[in-house]
């Protein structure tokens, strides 16, 4: 009972935050409501017994990634945005399609046998267990992620650095020498 109550509270926070993300005009309000969604999702993970995932959700997602987002929003001085109206085809096909898919998903979820349910704390994903799994069975993917992160860091540094530093222009003297060399070869 308590489990269901907590699920409903956190779920309402999640959905409210997600809808607020869509409704807000300013990117920074959207980012802040995404932080609410992520915090509430960490609560849901705790209900599912995923302790480690809940903690890294708060530290990495709600912490590091969102700080990066807010930093960029402030850096670029992003203002109020305008929404697109969408084409007529999108409205004519999209609304019936959305209703059809929604009904299909609802039907699949509703005909699930009632016996399948998640008891509170059925699985205990403590950092110790997850760490053992990561460093034994998933050792190779784990090491590959470190390479991925390294490449991402280098890519971010290269992409975000100013153009003139990324592609240094040849110095005028150097250019003259190149031209001279070309002339000699031509002669």
């Amino acid at each position, binding site marked *: 009972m308590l*489990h*269901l109550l907590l*699920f409903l509270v956190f*779920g309402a926070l*999640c*959905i409210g935050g*997600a809808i607020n*993300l*869509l409704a807000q005009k300013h*990117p920074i309000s*959207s*980012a802040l409501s*995404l932080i609410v969604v*992520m915090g509430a*999702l960490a609560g*849901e*993970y705790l*209900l*599912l017994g*995923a302790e*480690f*995932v809940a903690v*890294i*959700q708060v530290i990495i*997602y709600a912490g590091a*990634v969102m700080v*990066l*987002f807010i930093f*960029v929003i402030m850096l*670029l001085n*992003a203002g109020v*945005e*305008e929404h*697109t109206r*969408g084409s007529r085809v999108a409205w004519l096909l999209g609304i019936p399609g959305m209703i059809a898919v929604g009904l299909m*998903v609802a039907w699949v*979820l509703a005909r*699930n046998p009632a016996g*399948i*349910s*998640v008891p509170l704390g*059925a*699985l205990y*994903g403590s950092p110790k*267990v*997850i760490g053992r*799994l*990561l460093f034994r069975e*998933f050792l190779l*993917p784990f090491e590959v*992620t470190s390479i*991925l*992160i390294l*490449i*991402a860091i280098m890519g*971010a540094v290269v*992409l*975000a650095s*100013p*153009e003139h530093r990324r592609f240094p222009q040849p110095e005028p003297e150097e250019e003259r020498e190149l031209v001279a060399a070309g002339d000699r070869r031509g002669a």
Partner: protein
Amino acid sequence: MVPLSYYLALSAVLFTCGVAGFLIKRNIISIFLCIELMLNGVNLAFVAFAAQWHRLSGQVFVFFVMVVAAAEAAVGLAIIISVFRTRETLNVDQVNLLKL
């Protein structure tokens, strides 16, 4: 005891909100936020199934999804900064040099 379908429904709602935002938003940063929302919805489904089938590997997959999301955020935001520096806009409708 919460039915598994409740978790899946919440996950589906979050993912749908992300897709809808991806389609209606025009600010490139808001679009990026909606992608993060979609990833979060998928993560919830992973954790729910991990708890359902008593397999911890579902939670390890969430870890990998988070790593990829962090890498994507770093590179994506760098691209956004680069685009803003050259085009002076964040509206995706005005970044259309590749359009025919």
